[in-house]
């Protein structure tokens, strides 16, 4: 119970962090000399185009968190739908086939290809990664739901006339929740990395600040990485990407455990 409370607290603090970033870093104007070293007024220095890097990093956090929560929502939707489908043998087989077909599809290359059509927002990336990364889990969720649906206590519940939604809510969902949370945790952390990776290569949404964009700007500006400010921004942005991905992974997994 304590672990679950801690996990919910982590998720809530990430959501609060997004709200704070909207309040304190709604936009980061180009108003300073580029690559100024860290100082009291600019704790991470200024970026290669002359914006306060801390402001950029704060604003970038929301892209990562948005991608993570969007992936979590998409993943939970896909996995819950497969759980419901798994109760019926025919629908379960359909989930198996679709998941087998799509699970091997290239995800990162597909996101890159989609950049030809539109530059995806963090939420768009999260929704796509969340759905695609959960397909392998969808098979497992459907199989597990099928196993539980065949168990004696579910037969007993049916025998006393329990409606299907009650059986799903009382028996099937609680017995499959752990594996669903496990797959959803992987999907949400994968979305954080995918969003940062695409933005680092300049294929993310141009109007949205992102931690990947902060890192990419430093890497693509000749010599920026050799400056104190450039290095601080690179390390801070990548460390935050890894931290957000890891926190999402652990928090969602612990809620399910």
């Amino acid at each position: 119970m304590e672990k679950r409370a801690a996990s919910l607290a982590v998720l809530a603090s990430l959501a609060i962090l997004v709200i704070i970033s909207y309040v304190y870093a709604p936009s980061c104007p180009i108003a300073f000399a580029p690559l100024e070293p860290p100082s009291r007024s600019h704790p991470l220095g200024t970026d290669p185009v002359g914006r306060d890097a801390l402001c950029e990093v704060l604003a970038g956090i929301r892209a990562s968190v948005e991608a993570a929560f969007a992936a979590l929502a998409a993943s939970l939707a896909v996995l819950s739908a497969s759980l419901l489908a798994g109760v019926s043998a025919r629908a379960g087989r359909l989930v198996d086939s679709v998941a087998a077909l799509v699970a091997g599809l290239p995800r990162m290359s597909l996101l890159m290809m989609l950049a030809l059509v539109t530059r995806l927002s963090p939420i768009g990336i999260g929704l796509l990664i969340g759905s695609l990364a959960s397909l392998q889990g969808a098979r497992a969720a459907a199989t597990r739901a099928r196993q539980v649906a065949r168990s004696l206590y579910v037969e007993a519940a049916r025998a006393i006339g329990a409606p299907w939604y009650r059986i799903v809510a009382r028996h099937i969902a609680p017995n499959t929740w752990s594996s669903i949370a496990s797959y959803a945790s992987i999907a949400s952390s994968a979305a954080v990395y995918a969003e940062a990776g695409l933005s680092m290569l300049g294929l993310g949404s141009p109007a949205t600040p992102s931690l990947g964009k902060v890192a990419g700007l430093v890497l693509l500006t000749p010599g920026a990485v050799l400056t104190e400010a450039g290095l601080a921004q690179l390390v801070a942005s990548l460390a935050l990407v890894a931290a957000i991905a890891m926190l999402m992974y652990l928090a969602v997994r612990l809620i399910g455990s």
Partner: protein
Amino acid sequence: MGLVAELVLGLLLIAVLAYVSARAGLGNPFTGLGAEQGLGPEELRVLRHVYGLDEPVPRGLLSFIYGVLRADTGPSILYNKPAFALAEEALPWTLLGIGAGFLAAYASAALWVVLLGPGVPRPVRGLSFLPGYFYAVLMLLSSWWLGWPPALPGHGAEKLAAYVLVVWLALWPRLLHGLAGIVEDPGLELASVTQAMRAIGAPEHRVNARLLRTVLAPYTAYAATMLGMVLERSAILEPLLGYTGLGLLLYRGVASADPVLAATAFTLLGAIAYLVVVAGRLAERLLDPRLSRR
């Protein structure tokens, strides 16, 4: 669904995704290139015909699939060369870099289990979640600070070594994590084997070697799915490293709005990654004792 049907449908889906994304993003590349103003209607008509823009989508899709099958998908706007020839030229370099990195990771994870046992320390488990591009960024830093690998794009020996290193760094913690998971799986009932070997006084490395031999088939099947994953992620690793393989070609196709190049590189890369994943699943079905027992 049988594996063959799944394979055919999967490859078809990749081709459809490639064509539809390229076509939807394409619109009119000549506008994007700022060339439309200088072109007359007849020149535009010829260009649209050359790049297959005058065909309806279903017919264009069939032409694209036929083009992939006969290794001619049309010219690349960026390089002014046949896109398939460019992809064919880049493909071996991607396969070489990823293949060598994969083999090194496969062998080092197996060696770890033999020498140190199947237990994986928490930091190594943590590393298995880091994406490969973190290591590619490390290589970029090394390139700036130490002058190695060389900064200019290419696929020379030093670039190849850096690529192999990145793939190895990204893959071995994952393979080790997966291998440890297979060894610890109660479904394989390995505890009795190890207990019996320890009871007769077998040294620990022999017990571990025996463990590894028992799980080699499922480990190889798992490793194959990881290989498929890293193959498709070459599209992120190669641009960061400046390694001129198929992944970089895909990135350049997308970044420079060259849809023919992007669609060709995506189809090839996606198809190879998909084939590897399906081969891994086939190996799993045939060789994994947990599945063959069912």
